[in-house]
């Protein structure tokens, strides 16, 4: 009972992470196509106030897995060792890139920051899909739930398809986000990129869903899969019709449902074995004691609504669209930005 609840909680945490950090990664992936330094800055400003809070969804998912399913946490983190190390490197250079960009003193320094953000977005976006695909495919486990396969066992064509799926999906989601949240040339570039990514996202996503269902998954996973495809079609259609808000809502639904699909495929396992189902790690076996789950349930029920409330409030505070970059420190996302976007020329910064 509580195991099922916590399995669901962790699915929700991943869903929140894919929804929110999904567009952060997408914005990072957009940078090489943004045009120039000012455009990159404008794109980054759209996620500047919120990216760190979005990343905490991942840390909370990790912490909750540790607390509620220690065997799962231990097996996955040690088994996907290099993948997690690369994920960490990505998250580090991305975070530093975003935060230090405004402190860099030279154009070259800002270029390095942008490069860090881009690399730190492509890498996690790819790795997360590879990891999720391997969960579905199953891994080699011994009787102590220790992963025994080699690193290269994780790089099957199916897993790489999973990686490309999240990569293109986050790229699409981030471009749709920028289409909605920015003004001026960035908005136009992002809309163009989103349209270019629409077909690859659809094809890769569809192939991944189908191949996944061939491995495992019941009617719940199939149903979620169908909704994902429909939502993706809706997102693309709204994009083509120029309805940015609806397009983002639909692509948001897709990102939320991808982890839900993966978790629906897994249940009642948390880490299926591909060397015999008797080795599969089930939610029941992996879980903490009843007491620990009860304690964590109470904590989650008290604090999750509070977190959701103030995080939603922060999105409300920063609801204004982000205009083209202005050259004055201290300028907020206020009228001045809107004026700049509507064509009042700002003095160019000395290079």
């Amino acid at each position, binding site marked *: 009972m509580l195991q099922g609840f916590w399995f669901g909680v962790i699915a929700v945490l991943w869903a929140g992470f894919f929804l929110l950090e999904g567009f952060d990664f997408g914005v990072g992936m957009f940078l090489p196509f943004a045009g120039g330094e000012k455009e990159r800055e404008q794109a980054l400003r759209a996620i500047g106030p919120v990216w760190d809070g979005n990343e905490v969804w991942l840390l*909370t998912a990790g912490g909750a897995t540790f607390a509620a399913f220690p065997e799962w946490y231990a097996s996955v*983190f040690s088994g996907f060792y290099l993948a997690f190390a690369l994920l960490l490197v990505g998250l580090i250079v991305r975070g530093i890139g975003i*935060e230090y960009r405004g402190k860099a003193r030279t154009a070259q320094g800002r270029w390095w920051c942008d490069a860090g953000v881009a690399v730190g977005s492509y890498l996690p976006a790819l790795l997360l899909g590879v990891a999720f695909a391997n969960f579905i495919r199953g891994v080699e486990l011994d009787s102590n739930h220790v992963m025994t396969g080699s690193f290269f066992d994780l790089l099957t064509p199916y897993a790489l398809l999973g990686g490309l799926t999240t990569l293109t999906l986050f790229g699409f989601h981030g471009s749709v986000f920028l289409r909605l949240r920015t003004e001026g040339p960035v908005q136009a570039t992002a809309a163009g990129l989103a349209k270019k990514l629409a077909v690859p996202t659809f094809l890769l996503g569809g192939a991944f869903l189908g191949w996944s269902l061939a491995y495992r998954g019941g009617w719940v996973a199939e149903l979620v899969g169908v909704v994902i495809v429909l939502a993706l079609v809706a997102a693309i259609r709204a994009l083509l019709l120029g309805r940015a808000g609806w397009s983002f809502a639909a692509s948001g639904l897709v990102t939320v449902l991808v982890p839900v699909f993966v978790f629906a495929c897994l249940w009642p396992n948390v880490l299926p074995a591909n060397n015999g189902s008797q080795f599969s790690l089930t939610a029941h076996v992996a879980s903490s004691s009843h007491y620990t789950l009860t*304690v964590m349930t109470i904590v989650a029920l008290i604090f999750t609504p509070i977190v959701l409330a103030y995080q939603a409030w922060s999105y409300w505070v920063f609801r204004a669209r982000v205009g083209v970059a202005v050259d004055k420190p201290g300028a907020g996302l206020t009228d001045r930005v809107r004026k700049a976007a509507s064509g009042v020329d700002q003095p160019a910064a000395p290079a």
Partner: protein
Amino acid sequence: MGFPTLLARAVLDQSERRSHKSAERTTVDPTMLARWQFATTTVYHFLIVPLSIGLTALVAVMQTLAYRKRGTAAGEQWDRSARFWGRIMLILFALGVVTGIVQEFQFGMNWSQYSRFVGDIFGAPLAMEALIAFFIESTFLGLWIFGRDLLGPKLHCATIWMVAAGTTISAYFILAANSFMQHPVGLKYDAEQKRVELTSIWKVLTNSTQLVTFPHTILAAFMTASALLVSISAWHLRKDKDAADPAHKGVLKIGLGVLIVSAIGVSLVGHVQGQIMTDQQPMKMAAAEALWDTEKNADFSLFAYANLDEGHGNRGKNSFNVSIPSGLSILATNHPSGTVKGINDVATAEAKAHGGSPAAYIPVVWLAYWSFRLMIGLGVLAALLAIFLAIQWRRGKLTSSDKLLRVSVWTVTLPLLANSFGWLFTETARQPWLVYGWLTTKDGVSTNVGAGFVFTTLVLFTALYGVLGVICFRLVRHYAMLGPADTTPPEPGAAATDEPVMSLV
């Protein structure tokens, strides 16, 4: 001897001992590499953490003063200070955030057997830290950085207080998790699952070890951050003399005041902590004193030039040793004639209780001895320096004396190093235990991660941290040297600067 050299010697000593024991072992031991990685990433992370904990609260104080005195010259001055220090805080905070993620992942990557064994208990405070503290920190920091023009001044000021609260709550949970490793409480052993399980979260969160460790660490964080205020303010006062921005004197005053008060607090709490430690981990106190044989009226050794290894008696008996008579007995038991257990007796008792030879229960004694002394010594030195500077200031000599200000600039190095030595002591002197009395370090390491993998990530993280450390240091130095006047936004219509608006502080 430099800090890395100390670490290197600790590792060499350990591996030497191991290789004597197991002659058949030919490959590199992944446990040692995993320990190296944990030590490197944690010490590095904790160079930043105390600064972010202390600085967020101190910047919050500055901004509150600016708000209270708004419209006056004093209010303007505090506003300049809050912006100036806010920017330095942000540069450090970013590095603390990204290195913190490694910490959470590392338990599962390198220490998965540990995670399996104690996850039922240890995971809970980590999850609570993420849910309760990390969300507050990250969300309100974003609101503070970008919300200056969007929120009212009162609300904007409240956001930085929320960040400060978040950092402190975060410290509480992670220190509760560490205190559990030092002194496991609220648990039972489940023979079927071969793991320990939580019986009382309340006991874990109010562990006696935690109740002294938390104030000790938080006060040390305030020592460190306030010492940074002293250092940078003194640098400006020395450079610009009477022309210096008056903001620096205001900050210097806060810095010295907080440094003195928190230093006194750290030592008082540290004293209680020492007694609890003697009671809960007798080996740690014995190793800290290189006390091989149990003694009554035990002296507290201030400094020993001696071979501290086994067979040379307490603190290498026949060598040069400066000590306070009965000092250790007073420190550990509050009585001059109190008995303090020696390493040999404790090791024999532990071997009897847990099996194996007594030698297996002895940590690296010289490392414990010296890290304990350096922690206390550097902390006391920081306190004495702060008191001395405060007295000189009252006598009107500090701000006009080039020599005194030059010394003041170095203040921050003392608590920074003391923090590192404190962790080095408390973690290495607990060895061979990972969870005291329950799990040894070598049993906690991942069994399926080869030495090659651990070595790869060790090199990767060390190189990355090294580069980021240089960048962070250079940025802090640059913005610290710029001064508050360059932090205030220009009036509308003023010439554009080269500074983009990514972080609007």
